[in-house]
């Protein structure tokens, strides 16, 4: 029993779900749902389709290079079962996952921080241009901007926890 990765969106494919397509050159493509399958048939590169993980990694929106990713590798020679080793591995795995998620979240936060500062810069630029703006509106605008940013943060957090 194995959890595979969807070719298009890089999501997990649990057993009993999804479809598998085998091309004439013996390359195997697995899809988690028909959305991915249909998109694949329409031929665009998943690296250009915004909602896929491949896009996010390629566009630098998510952590790609890290020590914690090296724990997961596909091994060609299976190792004989040893209870001790299996137990240790499972504990290690849990800890590694914790660290991995922390690091990924940190990366995203950093990125958003940068964006935020840029937005702030833009606001200041704009405000220097338009002097007719009233105080309450400025306040409102400011609060709007903040609220937007907060909402973005929250949405990001929600999305992350759902992953």
């Amino acid at each position, binding site marked *: 029993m194995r959890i595979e990765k969807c070719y298009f969106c890089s999501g997990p494919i649990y057993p009993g779900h999804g479809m598998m397509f085998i091309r004439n050159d013996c390359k195997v493509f697995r899809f988690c749902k028909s959305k991915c399958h249909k998109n694949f048939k329409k031929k665009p590169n998943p690296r250009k389709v915004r909602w896929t993980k491949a896009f996010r990694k390629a566009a630098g929106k998510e952590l790609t290079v890290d020590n914690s990713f090296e724990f997961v590798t*596909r091994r060609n020679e299976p190792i004989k079962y040893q209870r001790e080793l299996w137990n240790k*591995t499972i504990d290690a*795995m849990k800890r590694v996952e914790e660290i991995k998620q922390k690091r990924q979240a940190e990366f995203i936060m950093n990125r958003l921080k940068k964006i935020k500062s840029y937005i702030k810069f833009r606001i200041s630029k704009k405000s220097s241009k338009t002097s007719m703006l009233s105080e309450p509106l400025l306040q409102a605008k400011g609060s709007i901007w903040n609220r937007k940013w907060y909402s973005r943060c*929250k949405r990001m957090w929600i999305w992350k926890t759902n992953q």
Partner: protein
Amino acid sequence: MAHYNFKKITVVPSAKDFIDLKLSKTQRKTPAVIHQHYQIHHIGHFYMRKVKFTQQNYHDRLSQILTDFPKLDDIHPFYWTMLLKITRATPSTARQKQSLAYLEQVCQHLSHLPTTDPNTRTPLLCGYPNVGKSSFINKVTRADVDVRSYYLRWQAVDAPGILDHPLEYRNTIVMQAITALAHLRAAVPYVMDLSEQCGHGLREQLELFQNIRPLFINKPLIVVANKCDVKRIAELSEDDQKIFTDLQAEGFPVIKTSTLTEEGVIKVKTKACDRLLAHQVETKMKGNKVNEALNRLHLAVPTRRDDKERPPLIPEGVVTRRKRMEMEEPKKKRERDLELEMEDDYILDLQKYWDLMNSSEKHDKIPEIWEGHNIADYIDPAVMKKLEELEKGEELRTAAREYDSDSETVLENESCSLGVDMDNKGDAHYSVQEKKGEDSAPHSSVAWSRSCPQTPRDVSGLWDVKMVKKAKIMMKNAQKKMNRLGKKGEADRHVFDMKPKHLLSGKRKAGKKDRR
């Protein structure tokens, strides 16, 4: 040695038929018509051709018959005696008829003979009718296709039951059997019926045996006591038992068989074959040709290189297997046996055959998946080392993060500078991670957050009063048409009257069609 197949001899037609055949053939094959105006030598030619053709045909056919028919001198004395018998059997009147007809009869008789090769070694089964010879053959031939796979094939010959009559009155088939006995190189298992089911008592069978014995002089003989499942030698009377012991004393091995239970059948076969082989070797040795052969032969033996012993290599497995076969150990208990034993309780547990480092762990249930990850991908003997490194790295990082300004405080400071009211910090969005278990249930769904956005839609994306006004005007403009037409919204395409009467009825003049 050639294998005679008498059935392939060409048919010899009677004299009258022969002539008719040839003439009709000539008629068919040669030109049939002459014309009056032909020159005389041409006509002569024509007839000569016919004559020549007939002559040629006769010659061919007769020579073919002659060549096919076996010469008496060439053939094995087996067949020769057979032929003599046949000539004696055919009535004398037939011989006086034309020779072709006689030949024909002889041929027919020959074709009835069985196709046996007189020079291969044969175990020749003899015995009374109903003694069990045929069943013996069935058993043997089912077990081995060739009786003994030597480089020359063996063949088993079944002699139909020999009745004990004086020689003159025996019928032709029996005569055949007897002639065969005399001339074939055979080992003779003489089959006797112990239980006397064949209808002839033991005494009678023995008498027959003694009668036929002169024919067996040069052949190795075995006495086969068949049907021993019905009656055993030990159960016979003392006199009868004595007979058997006598026989054994004379040098004829007695073997008990039963074609039903297959006891001893193979023994007989092997014994007969072995004895015959030995017999043949003996006769060859005694003959003249042996010395000639011996003079030409020389056995070369290699000289020893050193005193080292070099015994033949027999692998261990073979030795153990041989021992096991001799001792006939009970077989290992198989899964199937176990299944039959346990019946309903049986569960196929293949894990017990696993070869692990610690055999106590054989029956563990091995986990494969955890929280969306495959455990098999993480298994590595060096896992702990890697983990240690990772932990070290993590420690360093956390230390570094503490020196960095805390993201939350930064947030708070900046928002204060922008004029946001920071009093109700408890409800702040950025501190969701502390509030995780409490009221965050409705808030944590993405759908909910989408349906109630924080910025109102009519000002979202707009940063100017002018823009806001314009947006409003645009909105109103878009709605005018809809309102005038009584539509519920922009997606309302409902048609109230599909077929208005004033447009579809009446004459077409005065431009009615223009308004449809």
